[in-house]
C-alpha cells in the first residue's frame, strides 16, 4: 500500500476547509485583541520608535 492510498482514504480535503476556518478564527481573535480599547498609550509609544532612534535611550 502506498502512502497516497492511505492519505487518499483519509479524505483530507475536509481539513483544508477546517484549517481555513481555524485561520479565520485566529485572525478575528487577533483583530479584536488589537482594537480593544485601553492600549493606546503603548501603541503611541511604539509608533514613535523610528523617530527617536537617533538618541541615547533610557532602559525600557
Amino acid at each position, binding site marked *: 500500500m502506498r502512502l497516497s492510498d492511505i*492519505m487518499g482514504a483519509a479524505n483530507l480535503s475536509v481539513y483544508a476547509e477546517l*484549517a*481555513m476556518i481555524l*485561520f479565520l478564527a485566529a485572525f478575528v481573535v487577533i483583530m479584536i*485583541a488589537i482594537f480593544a480599547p*485601553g492600549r493606546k498609550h503603548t501603541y503611541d509609544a*511604539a509608533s514613535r520608535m*523610528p523617530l527617536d532612534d537617533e538618541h541615547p535611550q533610557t532602559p525600557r
Partner: protein
Amino acid sequence: MNARLDSFSYDDDIVRKFLWATMIWGLVGFLIGLIIAIQLPWPGFNLAPYLTFGRLRPLHTNAVIFAFAGNAFFTGAYYSTQRLLKARMWSDALSRFHFWGWQAIIVAAAVTLPLGLTQSKEYAELEWPIDIAIAVVWVAFAVNYFVTLTKRRERHIYVAIWFYIASIITVALLHIFNNLSVPAGAFKSYSLYAGVQDAFMQWWYGHNAVAFFLTTPFLGLMYYFMPKAADRPVFSYRLSILHFWSLVFLYIWAGPHHLHYTALPDWASTLGMLFSVMLWMPSWGGMVNGLLTLRGAWHKVTEDPILKFFVVAVTAYGMSTFEGPMLSIKSVNALAHYTDWIIAHVHTGALGWNGFLTFGMIYWLAPRLFQTELYSKNLVNLHFWLATFGILLYVVAIYSAGATQGLMWRAFDETGRLQYPDFVETVIRLIPMYWVRVVGGTLYITGATIGCYNLFKTWAKRPATYEVPVVQAAPLSAKDTDEHAPAVAGGLLARFTHMGWHRKWEGMPLFFSVMTAVAVIIASLFEIIPTFLIKSNVPTIASVKPYTPLELAGRNIYQREGCFNCHSQMIRPLTYETERYGDYSKPGESVYEHPFLWGSRRIGPDLAREGGKFPDLWHVRHMYNPREVTQKSIMPAYPHLQSNTIDFGSIQKLVDAMAMIGVPYGDAVNKAPAMAKAQAEQLAAAIEAAGGPKGLADKEIVALTAYLQRPGRDLKNAGTQ
C-alpha cells in the same frame, strides 16, 4: 536609572555596499527588460542564441526581483534594524558574507541563464548548485539577524521588523520546497514533483515570492522610512499590526489563483480566489495607513521629492493590491490570464511600488550614509517625473494590449466561428503598444540613470573618513516587564483583550518567529497536502506514457531556449480555447511532466495539442526562421538548432534521473542513447524524404521536432484504442 549604558556604533558600511548593489543591479535589470521589450515588436533584435527572448526574460525577472528589490530590502533592513533594535548587527563577518554571497549568486545567474541552464520554473529558474548557494547565504543572513534580535536593547520590536522576520522565514521555506529536485548533471535537474503537483508547488512559491519578497519586506521599509521622511509616526500603529497578521494569515493561501481553469482541482482554485479577495481589505488598510502618515504634511510633499516617491509607491501598492484580488476572480481571470494584462499588473507593482519605494529610500539614505548634502535635488525631481511618465506609458499601453488580445482570443463571428482563428493576427495588433512600452521603459531607465549619476556625485563629495557616531543605550533588563502598560484590572477576558500575550510574543523574537513560521507552514500544508496525496485529484490516463529518450532531449532544448516564456501548454475548458486549440488539458496528462511546462503567458499559441498538427518539416523550417512560415511572426529564429549536435551520451543521465523520481522508463534505463539515435535517424530520414535538409540525424532540431510532435498525442491515442 541609566547607570549602565552600553556604547556601540552601527554598521553603516554594509548599508552603503547594499545601496550601490541595488542601484547597479537595478540598472542592469531594467536594461535587460528594455532589450526584451524591443525583441517583441522587432524579433530581429534576438541577436545571438544566448540573447534570445526566452533566455533573457528569466534573467530580467531574476535581476529585478532578487538583485534590485533584494538588495534594496537588505539596504533598508540593515539600516533600520540596527537602529530599531539599538544594536549593531551581531556579526560583521556574516553581514559581509551575506553581501558578497548574494552578489556572487547574482553573477552566477547572469552567466547561467543566458547559457540556457534553467529549471524552467518562473522566478526559480536557477539550477540546483546556485539554489544551494542561495540557501546557505540566506541562512547566514537569518542567523545574523536572529542573534542580533536577541542582543537588542529595545524591549518592543517595531512592526517593520515583524515584516522582515516573516519575510526571512517564509522565503527560506518557499525556496527550499519549490526547488526540491533530482540532479541530472552539474547544471541540470528535474523537479521532484510532476504536473499538477509541480504547478501547485510552483505557484504557491511564485505567489508567495511576490508576497514575501516584494510585499512584506517593502512594507517593513515603508513603516520605517515613511515616518522618517515625513517626520511623524505612522498614522495608526494598530492598523499596521493588523496589516501584518492579515498578510501572514491570508497571503499564503492565495497562490492557486494563478491556476484558474487549469487542471487544478476546483476547490483549490476557489479557495485561492476567496483568500485573494479577502486580501484586498488589509492591503488597502496598509495603503491608507501609509498615506495618512502624511496627514498634516502634504505641503511637504510638494517640496520634497522623496515624499513624492513614497506617495506614488504607496498608491501603486494600493492599485496593484486592488487589482490582484480582482484578477483572481475566475471570470476576470479568464479574460486576463495568459495576456499582457498580467504583465501590466506586475509592473504597476514592480515599477511603482518596489521601484519608487526603493528610490525614495535611497535618496533619503544617501546624505546620511555619505554624510554630505545630496548633490542635486533638481535631479531627484527630474528622476521622479521621468519615471512617473515612464510607468504611465508602460501600464496604459500594456493594459490595452492585454485587454485587446484577451478580447480577440474570445471573439466569435456571427457564424459561431472564431473571429481571429489565426493566432498571429492577435499578436500583430499589439505591436504599436509594444513600441509605446519601449518608450515608457526608456523614460524609466533614463530616470534611474540620472539617479545613479546623482548618487555618484553625492558620494564624490563624501568626507575623507566617515564619522562613526557612538550610540548609547541601556541593555535590556532581565525581567520581562512592560513599563508602559497600565496595570490591568479585571478577569481573564480583560487581560486577554489587553493583549498581555501578544506583548509577550513581541518581546520574544524567537517565539514570535516560530509562531509566524507555524502559521505559514500550517496554511501551506493544508493547502498542498491534499493535492499531493489524494489520488482522486489526479485521475490517471492509461494511454499517457513517458517521453521517449529523444523527446526528453528535445524537451530539454525547449526548456533551455525558454520556449515556455512565450508558449503555454494548458488549454482551459472554455469554448473559445477548445475551439482554437482542441480538447482541454486534463490533470492526468501531465503525470510525467517534471517540471510542468504549462507556462503563464501566451505570446505565441498554446502547444498542448501541437503533436501531429504540422508535418515534421514544417517545424524544421519554422524553427529555422519562423517568418518564412508565418509571415508576421514575432518568434525568435533558432537556426543554431540545425547545426548544434545532440549529445547522445548525456541522454542516459536524463533518463536515469527521471526514472529515479518514479517515471516508469522500463528498457530505456539501460539503452537510452541507442533508442534516441534510432528514433533520430528515422525522423531525419523522413524529413529528408519530404524535401527537407539532409544530415539532421544528430542535430538538435530533430530532438526538438520529436518533442513538439508529442504534446496531445497520448490523448488522441486513447481515443483510437
